[in-house]
């Protein structure tokens, strides 16, 4: 674990912070979006904002799989779980996410639905093998990082002719979300989203590579620094963005060279394209409908697609109207701008998905940063 220590070293952090202070132009503001919920979490967990000058502001992005899942998709999962003979295998976080009409997977479980918490797709596959008389549905969520394991599990199930395994697929694509933030008229009209540069995802980029971001840098003149998840990574990436902005550059720089290449992981990408194809349309919480922004199973694997197998329709649902998650996911608001934050909405009684996942901005603010509000 020497590896971790190296990227959490206090002295290196101090040196980087000093460079950022020295080089950041006091006459301007730097609004940098960390796309990824993993970065949001790390920024709070390590108190990174305490090391930054006041004119560098981190804007929290939509890269939290639990957060961007629209309420209608969660409702679908609840309906699937309640079917006779079904075991729904889900990541633990999803259980607490509020659905429509005060529903949640947790409540469905208490009402008798058989919902099992798993840590990976493989766990779900094992559940299917161990319960041949039951229909096991894996509630798949996540960006490009979690998609390859789902693809491999489906392939394994097909090979083993596992007839009682299927996937409720909610895998979404990072570049589509970034494009939506930069492009969507709804976002621009709000006018609140000024973003000067992006901290690019770590694990997602390991899979897709740095190449997909080149378009954003070129087309929108926004610098990107692909960053690891450790505090030193993040500080280094912020420094890279400050330098690019000072010099008027808009390039894709790769801070996370120890894991990310330009082309990403070819084998993982191949596995994904063997099993999945683009969905014509997918609704995101906060970002609305984005064309070609998510994946579904190819026709050849339709038998493993829970949506088709159980003919479960998507019914859009608004969720709690007072919850500011949608604006937070676009970077237009901060958790503390929500009047429910910390009073009605807490991690124990979440009203929105951003308060559930540890990668959600509201949860990170609440658990790690709420003392700041009192002292300001």
């Amino acid at each position, binding site marked *: *674990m020497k590896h*971790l220590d190296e990227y*959490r*070293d*206090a002295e290196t*952090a*101090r040196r980087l*912070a000093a460079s950022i202070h020295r080089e950041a132009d006091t006459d301007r503001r730097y609004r940098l979006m960390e796309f990824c919920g993993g970065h949001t979490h790390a920024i*709070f*967990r*390590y*108190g*990174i*904002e*305490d*090391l930054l000058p006041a004119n560098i502001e981190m804007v929290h992005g939509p890269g939290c799989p639990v957060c961007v899942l629209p309420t209608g998709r969660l409702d679908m999962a609840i309906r699937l779980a309640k079917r006779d003979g079904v075991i729904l295998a889900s990541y*633990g976080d999803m*259980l*607490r996410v509020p659905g429509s009409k005060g529903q949640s997977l947790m409540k469905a479980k208490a009402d008798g639905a058989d919902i099992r*918490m*798993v*840590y*990976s797709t*493989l*766990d779900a596959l*094992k559940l299917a093998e161990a319960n041949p008389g039951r229909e096991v549905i894996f509630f798949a969520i996540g960006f490009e990082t979690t998609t390859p394991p789902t693809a491999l599990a489906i392939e394994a199930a097909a090979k083993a002719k596992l007839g009682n395994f299927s996937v409720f697929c909610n895998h979404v694509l990072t570049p589509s979300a970034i494009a939506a933030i930069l492009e969507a008229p709804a976002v621009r009209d709000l006018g609140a989203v000024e973003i000067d540069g992006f901290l690019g995802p770590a694990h997602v980029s390991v899979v897709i590579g740095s190449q997909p971001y080149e378009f954003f840098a070129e087309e929108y003149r926004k610098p990107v620094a692909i960053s690891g998840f450790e*505090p*030193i990574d993040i*500080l280094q990436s912020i420094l890279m963005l400050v330098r690019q902005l000072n010099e008027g550059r808009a390039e894709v720089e790769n801070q996370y060279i120890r894991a990310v290449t330009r082309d990403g992981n070819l084998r993982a990408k191949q596995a994904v394209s063997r099993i999945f194809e683009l969905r014509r349309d997918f609704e995101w919480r906060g970002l609305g409908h984005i064309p070609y922004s998510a994946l579904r199973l190819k026709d050849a694997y339709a038998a493993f697609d829970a949506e088709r197998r159980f003919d479960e329709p998507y019914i859009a649902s608004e969720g709690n109207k007072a919850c500011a998650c949608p604006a937070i996911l676009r970077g237009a608001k901060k958790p503390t701008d929500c009047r429910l934050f910390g009073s009605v909405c*807490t*991690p*124990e009684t979440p009203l929105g998905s951003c308060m559930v996942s*540890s990668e959600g901005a509201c*949860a990170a603010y*609440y*658990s*790690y*940063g*709420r*003392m700041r509000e*009192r002292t300001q």
Partner: protein
Amino acid sequence: MNVASRASRSASRRLDLAAGRVDLTHGAGGRAMQQLIEEIFRPAFDNPMLARGDDQAAFEVVGGRMVMSTDSFVVSPLFFPGGDIGSLAVHGTVNDVAMSGARPLYLSAGFIIEEGFPLADLERIARSMGEAARAAEVAVVTGDTKVVERGKADGLFINTAGIGVVPPGIEISGDRARAGDAILISGSMGDHGVAIMAHRAGLEFETTIVSDSAALNGLVADMVASVPTIRVLRDPTRGGLAATLNEICHQSAVGMRLDEAAIPVRPEVLGACELLGLDPLNVANEGKLIAIAPAEDAGRLLGVLRRHPLGRDAMVIGEVTADPARFVRMATRIGGERMIDWLAGEQLPRIC
């Protein structure tokens, strides 16, 4: 051969500890239950009070304050690196009693066993419980056994209750922390929870992490003998260091400031936590304690802790502050600051 003599012969046959299983007759209050007690529990716990065979244990009441505590154990898996549900059931309750500064004396043990449970496992667990009790110098003086139908319990659940006596002059309670006090911990955080999670079905990864499950009463006895001014003792079990410190802040109406760099976490535990997306400060311990004492006594207390094998890695990790919001703050390793909060409803497996 008549029926009566056949029945008496079968009852005199010893339990099949190699391949036998618990069935419903073992909990029915008849001969079979008697046999289970005689052949498994009594030899394992072996003490005069239990040997008397009454439904209760009788003991002399000593002067001073007595403390009592109870805890139920539903850990899964039943056997894990560093212990099993039996030793855990002894350590857990011994520690709860000891965290008042008391010397634990007696335990009760209640077993809820699922029909079909292997007798070999039951015997192994009872023996481990007996060994843990003897090592901690407490006696299991009364007990109970129930057998429930298959599917109504997960193998075996154990409840233990414990009684102890507080030495004169010792006043330890969660509401006694005062601004300026020093906060100490006896060793590394997160070992037990990670050891359990690593061995849970479906979550098996290469690991050398062993549960820290241990009886802390010997350590506590040394501590209160040398530093009777200790104000708070608590073992950070479920919810880990984070939950326990928040509980103390609420009870004492204070805040805390910690130094992340001072909190020992084993590199393997840290690595496993990264993988599982957990914070080691939220992960359970079963053989560690938190002590809060006046700052002027902190150095002496640290010395006592480090001289004991269970406190070798002890550290002063921070101080109690005056804070109406009762926040636990922590200076992070890289020089930032964050809060340490209770973990909200994370769906962790059964760890104790």
